[in-house]
């Protein structure tokens, strides 16, 4: 069922084919999903997960690798400490965040795309160039298998957006690239990477 989302995620359309012909519907959407890290839900805290490794692997396998690879952001939500529940820190106002997002979207529109996720691979070198240090960092991640080829393009688009949110134009440098790698890397918890 979930894997049926792969085509609309990739192409932004739903195609229904029957014997009489096929019809195409527009389906460009933003996919937001939530799940527990394991059946007991405690894998987020070191040493407290009570699931057998096999049970955790089974649970994680319910999401296919190709589907997971299409998530650009995977943010782990920590269980808040008791002190934070009693006296929460004041967060940033939504209006401030909204203004920042509007600003970043305007920067993307200046590149003639609705959002940076739509940047063509061929345009990345021109619109999302990376500096020397960031390039060797990405190469290291590719070499060690921590980053796939599809992931590389996605990380560059994501780093472009993170830089846009910071109001930084031009060449991407190490901090925004490591931030993008980290935000994408949250998926590895679900891919069954063991936490030592």
């Amino acid at each position, binding site marked *: 069922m979930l894997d049926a989302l792969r085509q609309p995620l990739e192409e932004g359309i739903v195609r229904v084919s029957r014997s009489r012909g096929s019809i195409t519907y527009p389906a460009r959407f933003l996919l937001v999903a939530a799940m527990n890290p394991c059946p007991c839900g405690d894998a987020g805290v070191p040493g407290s997960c009570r699931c057998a490794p096999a049970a955790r692997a089974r649970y994680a396998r319910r999401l296919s690798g190709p589907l997971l690879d299409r998530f650009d952001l995977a943010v*782990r939500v920590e269980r808040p400490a008791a002190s934070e529940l009693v006296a929460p820190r004041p967060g940033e106002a939504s209006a401030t965040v909204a203004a920042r997002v509007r600003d970043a979207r305007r920067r993307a529109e200046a590149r003639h795309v609705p959002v940076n996720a739509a940047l063509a691979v061929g345009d990345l070198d021109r619109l999302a160039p990376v500096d020397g240090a960031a390039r060797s960092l990405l190469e290291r991640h590719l070499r060690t298998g921590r980053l796939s080829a599809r992931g590389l393009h996605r990380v560059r688009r994501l780093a472009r957006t993170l830089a846009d949110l910071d109001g930084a134009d031009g060449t991407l440098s*190490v901090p925004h690239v490591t931030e993008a790698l980290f935000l994408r890397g949250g998926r590895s918890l679900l891919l069954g990477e063991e936490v030592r």
Partner: protein
Amino acid sequence: MSGPDARDRACAAALLGLAGMTPLRLARLLDGMGPTVAWAAVRAGTHPSDPARRFAAPARSVDPDVVDRRYRDAGVRILLPGRPGYPAALVGDPGAPAVLCASGDTGVLEARPAVALVGTRSATPYGAKVAAELGRRLAAAEVVVVSGLARGIDGAAHSGALAAGPGAAPPVAVVGTGLDVPYPRENRLLWARVASAGAVLSEAALGTRARPMVFPARNRIIAALADVVVVVESHRSGGSLYTAEAAARRSIPVCAVPGSVYSAASAGSNELLVEGCIPVRDADDVLAAVALVRQGRGMASPVPSRAGRRVAPGGPDPADRVQCSVWEAVDDTPTPVETVLLRTDLSLAALTAAGEALVEQGLLTAGAGWWSRA
């Protein structure tokens, strides 16, 4: 006001008081740049460490001369690294505050040994008695007692040091609030007496109120000022264990006073002893530890971290403040990056870049969204 030094102090005070300023942000703004130059750059929105210009607008509504007058009216001096009055023990420390506020005379710290007496805020009568006695006897032996003016052990240690009478070494306190905000209220009088006899230090701007985050941070300053740290009484996850951990990272010996195995207030300090810290029964035991440090024969002190593991000294280049602060915030057990983010107050971009560099140097190992010390 006259002279470049005075202008630097005024600009440092103005930077310190900007809304949203933290010790780490301040250290980055003043890294390799004098306060006067940094202030002008922040105001102009051209400071390389403030690319988002978050401090530019607030800075434009602040006049350093007015801020400076507030500090002088409050009798608070602004101390800068490398300038007179800044404690020599903090020079070269990876966590040294870029700007330090002082009431009283920091000169008392020079040419005298210093011992930090720290412990729980909810002290038992036993703990309070030991702290007061250690404070009095150490001060009488010309040792500066350093503590945090908190309830419980801290207050008892300071009271004891003041009770040693004339001729004794004056005490020094490091507090988490602004120097015009005595906290807790019941220690107001004690606070004033420590300031007039010795010195009260803070890295917080005038007017800064008590917040839970500031106290673990100031504990590193208490540890860095001391030749020896003594944990008198501590619960299993007490704040004074932060002080012990900060000391161990600096290769400063940690002593602990043994307590009853049935007392929850001694669970943390007894644990330190099991881990191999130096047991002390009285001031003589502490003075023996101080003498060994002063002779350059420091005692190795394995100390549990917050996670209960041993911490070995050694870490990133002390000149790289961002890497140092990330290193300080990562435990020996896997620490979620989100937790490190809250502890360091860095942007996620700066944090992940520093973390990647530490992984490259082999100082951290990275898991799925976790870091731990290698």
